[in-house]
Every structure is written in C-alpha cells, then in structure tokens.
C-alpha cells in the first residue's frame, strides 16, 4: 500500500514557538510525527571557557545570561557553589534577602512559562495577563538592584545591596494581588475543556523514565517523584519556611501545568514568611579574605586599600579540590561543578543546566504525537536556550 512519503520538516531555529533558537528536525507522516531530533548550539557562547579566564567574582554577571528568565536563581546557585568551595555561609539577613529575591524570581519565571505556553496553544490573552503581573516583580527587582532582567545582585558571601526602604511595603502589596491573579489564570485555563483535551495524556513521562532520563524540577515532580532540592538540601533558610511540594500523578502536560501553578502559590507563601521573619544585621559575611572593604574610610586607612586591590586582582584563594552543588532553579536542578587549583581563577567550571538534560527525552515522547502536540510538549518543558547552549 503506497504510503504518502514522509516529510522532513524543520521546526527551525527561526520559529514562533521554540522558546529560543532550538531546531527540531521532525520527520512527519501527514500530521503525525515519525521521528524528531533536536539540534542545538546556535546560542553557544562558551561560558565554561570564559569562566576559566575570569575571577570568581567576575563570573557572576555571566551567570545572569544562563537562564535569562530567572537570573537571580542562577546567581544564587553560582554563589552557593563557590561558598561551598570556600566553606563559608552568608549572614542571616543576607540569606533572607537571597531567599526573597530567588522565590520572587521563581514566580516571575513561572509567569513567563505559563504565558508563553498559553500563547503557543493559541490563548493570546493569558500571555498579556501574566506579563502584566510579572511587570510588578520586575519593578521590585529594579528597585532592589537597578536592573530588571540581568540582576547581578548576589555576591559570594552575601548580597551587594540591602533592601531599599519602600521595598517591603511594595512586596506585600504584590503578595496581596497575585493570588487573585492566579485564580484568574485558573479560571481561564485549568478546567477549560479545550485546554484540558489539548494537554491531557500528551507527552506522558512515567516516573522511571523521568529518573532514567535525568529530568529535574517541575517536570520530574509532575511524573509523581516528590524531589525538591529545597527540601532535600535545605541551604539558606528554606528549613525555616513551611511550604509543600506539589506533585503530579500522570506526568502528562496537564500535570506539568498543574505543578507550575501550585509552585507559584507556594513561592508566594515562602516570600510572605521570609518578609515576616526578616532579621536586621549586615548583608555580607565579614571575612577579610572575601568581603570588599567599605570605601568611605579609604584615603587614610591604607591596609584596607591594599586588601581592596589584593582582593580584586588576586581574587579569593579557595582550597584545592572540587565541589558540586545543585540548586532548585525554576526549570530544574541548576548545578555548578567547580575544580579549583588554589588560584583566584577556577581551573574548570561545569554548568549542569536543567533544560539541556530535560531535552533528552523529547525524541522518546514526541514519536507518534501530532504536530500540535510537539508545540504543547515543548512549551510544557519550558526550555530556555540560553541555558541549553551555555
């Protein structure tokens, strides 16, 4: 029986719904997908090679460009890894500020993920609502550190800025508004029959496959595995926060959507508690080998000037050895593997990016799906190409 010949179609780097410059070489037979091969590398900037030529402190603004939808979490993950290498910890207030900003960044990230997902499936308005709510968060970030997207607000051993005075009130104001907005999204999407049939049992990932293929973050939890690094390794102050980890049951696109919506609500709870328990105190660890001296008493206090220059030219002197630390980035487990040879420059830095590893399962779950499903599955994994290509 003569079958219609298969069509090789490039869901190419330039395509409205590939969340960046990812190319999916899709072999299609009519509307059905026979095989699909992701091709990446368009946005490869060679960050790991750059890191070897930079001091530890200089690399922080580069981590903003990893997962450009959640820069604060990337900074935090890198700073935590270096702090684990140096064996130090940020002071109390520094920790709280970091948790507040990181959880706000998680909400902002999920808002973008949700908005672009709705847009990919044709629901235009949900994109505008989510971006309008994200605008409030971006204003808070701009108040805090001066930039909306590329924050570069954390340093090894603490944060550079303290919370500006109007910040806490504005954050509380945001926390009152956001639950009703999330209810709007749920009203628009969650029980909408078109949305449900579009996502129910599409791109199903069983728990074993999820673990075998190295899925992490909301995609892993949607398959029923209760694994959240904030609960397993509670660094910073996550152990003092009460929040529960939403877990899906079937591992299909609808569960991934459900997990992300609930995670937004949990992050609101965390920020609320963190704002309530915010202690006074300094924001940078006061170890002379790490923290920069403050600049007011510079002209006359000469040893401080020498230490300032020494720190900025030689950098920190971490002990020899290697360390790996994974952080619960909104997209999954973002980990940094640092090999140090004692000098101020890292000998080798490996970035374990969640979207890169999550993408391995695409060929397996997209076989037999339809073209419209490919877009839905791609959006449900919420990949960001900055992080995939590094």
């Amino acid at each position, binding site marked *: 029986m003569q079958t219609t010949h298969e069509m090789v179609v490039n869901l190419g780097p330039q395509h*409205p719904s590939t969340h960046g410059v990812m190319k999916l070489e899709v072999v299609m037979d009519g509307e059905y997908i026979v095989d699909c091969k992701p091709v990446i590398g368009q946005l490869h900037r060679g960050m790991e090679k750059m890191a070897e030529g930079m001091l530890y402190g200089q690399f922080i603004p580069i981590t903003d460009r990893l997962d450009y939808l959640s820069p604060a979490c990337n900074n935090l993950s890198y700073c935590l890894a270096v702090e684990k290498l140096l064996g130090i910890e940020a002071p109390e207030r520094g920790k709280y500020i970091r948790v507040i900003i990181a959880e706000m960044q998680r909400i902002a990230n999920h808002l973008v993920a949700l908005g672009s997902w709705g847009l990919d499936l044709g629901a235009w308005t949900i994109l505008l609502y989510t971006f309008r709510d994200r605008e409030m968060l971006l204003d808070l970030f701009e108040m805090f550190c001066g930039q909306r997207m590329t924050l570069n607000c954390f340093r090894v051993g603490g944060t550079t800025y303290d919370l500006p005075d109007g910040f806490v009130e504005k954050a509380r104001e945001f926390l009152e508004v956001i639950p009703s907005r999330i209810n709007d999204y749920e009203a628009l999407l969650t029980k909408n029959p078109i949305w449900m*049939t579009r996502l129910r049992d599409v791109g199903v990932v069983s728990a074993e496959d999820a673990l075998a293929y190295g899925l992490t973050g909301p995609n892993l939890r949607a398959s029923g595995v209760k694994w959240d690094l904030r609960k397993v390794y509670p660094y910073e102050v996550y152990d003092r926060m009460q929040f529960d980890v939403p877990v899906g049951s079937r591992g299909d696109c609808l569960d991934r959507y459900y997990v992300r919506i609930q995670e937004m609500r949990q992050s609101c709870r965390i920020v609320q508690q963190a704002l309530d328990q915010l202690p006074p105190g300094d924001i940078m660890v006061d170890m002379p080998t790490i923290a920069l001296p403050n600049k007011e008493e510079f002209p006359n206090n000469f040893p401080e000037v020498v230490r300032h220059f020494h720190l900025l030219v030689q950098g920190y002197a971490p002990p020899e050895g290697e360390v790996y630390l994974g952080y619960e980035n909104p997209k999954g487990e973002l980990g940094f593997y640092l090999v140090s040879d004692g000098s101020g420059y890292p000998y080798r830095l490996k970035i374990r990016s969640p979207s890169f590893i999550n993408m391995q399962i695409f060929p397996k779950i997209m076989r037999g799906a339809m073209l419209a499903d490919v877009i839905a599955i791609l959006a449900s994994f919420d990949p960001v190409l900055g992080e995939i290509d590094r």
Partner: protein
Amino acid sequence: MWLYQFFYQPGEWARGIYQVMENWAVRIGMGIQWIQLIDMIIVAIILIAFIFLDVMFLTWLERKVAGHIQVRHGPMRTGPHGIIQPVADAIKLLFKEPMALPGVDNLIYLISPLMMFVGAMLIYIVIPFSPGWVVAPMDYGLLFAFAASGLSSFFVMAGGWSSNNKWSLLGGMRAAAMTLSYEVPLILAAIGVALVSGGLSLVGIVESQAGMWNIIRQPLAAVLFLVASLAEMNRGPFDLAEAEQELVAGYLTEYSGMRFAMYYLGEYTHLLAGAALFTTLFLGGWQGPLLPPILWFLIKIHVMVFVYMWIRWTYPRIRIDHLMAFNWKFVLPLALINLGVTGLVLVL
C-alpha cells in the same frame, strides 16, 4: 418626511427612486433594460462600498477589542484612538512588494485569493438589510448563502497547495477538512430555523420572527450555528488553518502584499457575513422596537461580531483530531437531535 421614509419604509423609498429613473428614461426614449442595468450597477456599488467600509471598521474593531481585553490600548498612534489604522494597513499592504516565488503554480496562486474573496461576498446578495433592501430576494436564500461559503473554502486549500511550502500545504489541508466537516452541522442548524420559520427565504425568516426571536425558539440551534460558523470562518478556537504558533502562518505563509490583503479581507468579509447570517436567522434581522430597521440590523451585526472576537481572544486552539472528533461525535448528533425534536414539536 423623505428622511422618515428612507429609514422606516426603505422598500417604498427604493421603488420611488426606481420609478423616478424609469420616467426619466421613458422621457428620453431609452429601453427599460438599460435602466434595470443601471439600477443593478448602483445597488452593486452600494453593496461593495458597504462591505469594504464595514470590513475596514472590523479590522480596527478587532485590534481595539483584542487590546482592551488584554488590558492594553490597541492602536492609538494613527489618528485619535487609531481610527486611520485600517487605512494605514491597506496602504502598507498595497505597496508591499509581492514576492516572486520559485516553484509556485502561478495561475492558482493568483486566482485563489480573488475567488475566496468573491465567495465570501456572494453571501451578501441574499442578506435582508431592511424590509425592502435585499439585493435578490430568493426563495432559497439560506441555501445560496451556504453554497457561497462552501465555495471559498475550496480556494483556501488551493491557495495553500499552490504556494509550494510545507507549512501552507498543511494549513490548506486542515482548512479544507475543517470547513467541509463543519458545513454539515451548519446547514442542519439553519434548517432547524427554516423548519420553525417555514421556508428557506431569508426575508421570510426575518418576518416570521416579528413576535419572538428564533434564538428563544431554537436556543440549541443558535449555539450550534455559532460554533459551526466559527469553524467555517477559521476563527476563534478553530483557527487551525493559519495557526501562527504551529504552521508559521498556515496557508497565508507565502502570500504578501495585495494578495495577502485579499485573503485577509476575505476572512473579515466571512466574519461579517457569519454575523449577518446569525442575526437574520436568530436575532430577528431588522426587527426592533423604535429605532429604524437598518440601524437595528447594524447594531445586532456588530454585537455578534464582538461576540466572535470575544471568543477568539479567550480560548486556546483546538487540535485537528479533537476538532474532527468534536464535530462528528458532539456537534452533528446534537444538530440531528435538534432537528428531530423541532420536527416532532411542529407536527404535534
């Protein structure tokens, strides 16, 4: 008085004008046919002018409605509240250089936008704008409307095929499959109304709704007609033919400049025709308490257009196999049941 007659008895007013022209023709000895010809040409010009103006207004309305639903302004820069935006669009599209594409089957590539637009405009011949104003008061007006809309779906597919591009081929196939399978419930729902109002002629249907609008007598048919006409127009949750996120731009991918404008206007003419059909069938055409009938008709049409736009900007897109399953397993059985029940009620 003359103005009153224009608004409230448009039929007599039109005949009066025709009478004047006839006397004038007899006086200078011209044949009757020429007068009929001129009359036809004038009516055609008025109809086309109405369609073009209203479609322009529709494009502007769509942007404003989409804007305000999404809590933003919509066009504001061209004129107060972006009034001149449609003109700006038209000029831009006019001067855009149409691409000469390799491997494109030129004959079909050029004809399909034109025929799609013609198919969409044919529907207006049978729509009763107000008591006397129908271009062709046919007995089978309803059937003529569906014949015309069926025609334009063929040329959407032809356009998709001839632009020699994978995406538009997929878009064209989807469009054909969708419009064909949704034509059946569309006609069945309309026949439900024809049963209740007795007769297929649209003027008859409107007059039969003097007492109670059909939407009350045939609520289920109204919903089905709305859903099926959404699919027929490739709009709303059923806009699979030019699904930007999946097929780049569906069957419109390779079209640019004036050809794209033709398709674009065709789509909006379809939208207006769908809204007009819905009002004539279910909302009692030009029936209305004190306003002149023509105003009532325009208000109802634009309320329906707003509803179509409102639905489009709310829902995600449906998948092609769900679309088919939704039609054959849900919409069509309901339409048949509705037909059966109306038949029973009428007989008893």
